[in-house]
């Protein structure tokens, strides 16, 4: 207790110096909480978008369907085998048909992705949060796609496709609705229409996708294994693997940045504690002469450095935690990013991930880094010869 009181009084001696030294710890901890909250939020965003708009928890494709790629070939489609259809009865699932399409409106035309939706599509792909201008009964365009081609509900358009047999086919439609989903993969490129219409247009023998919604995400790998003999299966995690891998790179980059900031902070704290030990050599000698043990002298400086780190860690955790909580509640608007024309599936409103774990870890991290940085000067002070130190200038 006495050591703690003395350490606190010592810390208040050079307030400005200690505050400046602590700033790096404050930023480091705040960045750690915010950065990891951002990437964790992005992970959840990508996963949720993958599940809610692309694949459900498990996605099945025909055997010859390409594993990856932006094109949606229809020449590899086939009817759903009886055994698979039987097995799927135990699960909430919907069929979809994806196909490449050219959307023509007057003199304008644009490449897009056609998606045939069954009537029960909402059972797997919920539409909460969508804004619809018009109706779902018929051809629905993604909002940005509609804007690019100048279409709105009631606008006549033509869909040109290559059929499963390789022929060119086209059908005229009237746009029934324009949907804003905040997901660039839909808003920028999707032409949504009833599944039977899409099957007829493409002359497809079967769907390209069968998507399952499960009770729990954790069931996905087991269900995918169970259904995987006839058709290809992938879980939502496999479907979002590329984006999640990019997030892993972001996570490592943030970790490196935090490491660098904390290394600078540790150097600053070590420097401040070293200066304190030099400035107070005579005091250290006096305390030793009065009977303070070397271990207690070491503790005194460790408490000083650790307290500096703790206070800075708490401030950093408050700053990072408050900003993280704010963005976890209100979200960050990335709709401008969608305007670039990306086809990636994510929600343009990003909610950061907030939990108390990183906030507490930030305080512990700040305190630990500062304590470690104080170890060398604290040991130096503890080893001082009291007979010499007591008469230091």
């Amino acid at each position, binding site marked *: 207790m006495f050591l703690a009181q003395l350490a606190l009084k010592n810390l208040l001696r050079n307030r400005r110096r200690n505050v400046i030294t602590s700033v790096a710890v404050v930023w480091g901890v705040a960045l750690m909480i915010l950065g990891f909250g951002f990437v964790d939020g992005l992970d959840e965003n990508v996963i949720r978008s993958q599940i809610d708009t692309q694949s459900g928890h498990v996605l099945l494709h025909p055997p010859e369907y390409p594993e990856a790629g932006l094109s949606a070939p229809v020449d590899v489609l086939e009817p759903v085998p009886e055994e698979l259809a039987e097995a799927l009865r135990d699960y909430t699932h919907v069929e979809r048909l994806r196909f490449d399409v050219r959307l023509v409106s007057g003199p304008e035309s644009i490449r897009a992705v056609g998606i045939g939706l069954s009537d029960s599509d909402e059972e797997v792909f919920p539409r909460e949060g969508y804004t619809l201008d018009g109706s779902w009964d018929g051809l629905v365009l993604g909002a940005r796609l509609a804007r690019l081609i100048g279409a709105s509900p009631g606008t006549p358009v033509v869909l040109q496709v290559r059929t499963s047999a390789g022929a060119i086919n086209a059908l005229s439609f009237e746009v029934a609705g324009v949907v804003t989903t905040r997901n660039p993969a839909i808003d920028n490129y999707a032409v949504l229409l009833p599944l039977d219409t899409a099957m007829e247009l493409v002359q497809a023998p079967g769907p390209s996708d069968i998507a399952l919604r499960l009770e729990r995400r954790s069931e996905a790998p087991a269900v995918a294994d169970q259904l995987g003999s006839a058709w290809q299966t992938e879980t939502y995690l496999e479907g979002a693997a590329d984006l999640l891998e990019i997030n892993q790179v972001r996570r490592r980059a943030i970790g490196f940045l935090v490491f660098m900031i904390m290394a600078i902070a540790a150097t600053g704290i070590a420097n401040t504690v070293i200066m304190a030990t030099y400035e107070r050599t005579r005091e250290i000698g006096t305390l030793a002469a009065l009977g303070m043990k*070397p271990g207690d002298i070491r503790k005194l400086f460790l408490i000083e450095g650790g307290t500096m780190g703790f206070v800075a860690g708490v401030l950093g955790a408050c700053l990072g935690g408050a900003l993280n909580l704010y963005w976890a509640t209100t979200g960050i608007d990335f709709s401008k990013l969608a305007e670039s024309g990306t086809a990636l599936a994510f929600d343009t409103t990003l909610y950061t991930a907030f939990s108390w774990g990183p906030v507490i870890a930030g305080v512990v991290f700040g305190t630990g880094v500062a304590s470690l940085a104080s170890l060398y000067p604290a040991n130096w002070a503890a080893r001082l010869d009291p007979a010499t130190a007591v008469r230091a200038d």
Partner: protein
Amino acid sequence: MPILSLNDVGKRYPLGEGFVDALQGVTLDIEEGEFLAFAGPSGSGKTTLLNLVGCLDSATSGTIQLDGRDISKLSRSELGDLRSEHVGFVFQSFNLIPVLSAMENVEVALRLGGREPSKERCEKALVDVGLKEQLNKRPSQMSGGQQQRVAIARALVKEPRLVIADEPTANLDSKNGEQVLDLMRALNEEQGATFLFSTHDPIVMERVRRTVKLRDGRVISEV
């Protein structure tokens, strides 16, 4: 039995490739309650001798007995325990802890001696040195003479057997120096603690009962 008994004590320090003998063959007995000064020019070994008898350092040769116990071969930790229990220090530059008040500076001596600091005891120690009005002042708010009085109170509060005063008047004007010496003399008579000074101040030498003169690390005379 003397409180301190030095027998053929030597202290050698490394210096460059060689060494220097700061003390050589010092043999001396100091009785309990003495008021004694080690005098001599700079480099004569006064401070080295105070360091040895004050348990701040260890002798290279010879033996030093404090209260019949040989302290010449004790470890740093054991010397620390002895200091906190039996030795009080008064330094030339006062050596108060600047972030602590006069009371807290005095309390430190008790805490580090492993005793619970009693407010009454610390207050009495400060009142005894004439600082009744300065209890809560910090060193920077006090004059040099007042700071040295706090240092004396800090040295005496744990009722040590030995008080080591290293040139205690060197940073004081003559009036304050005399007052501080008179105070220490009075406390020596009242409390019976043994006071050992290092000095080349004639005022100190006038007031002590015994002066041991040193030159080049050897005792050359006793008065």
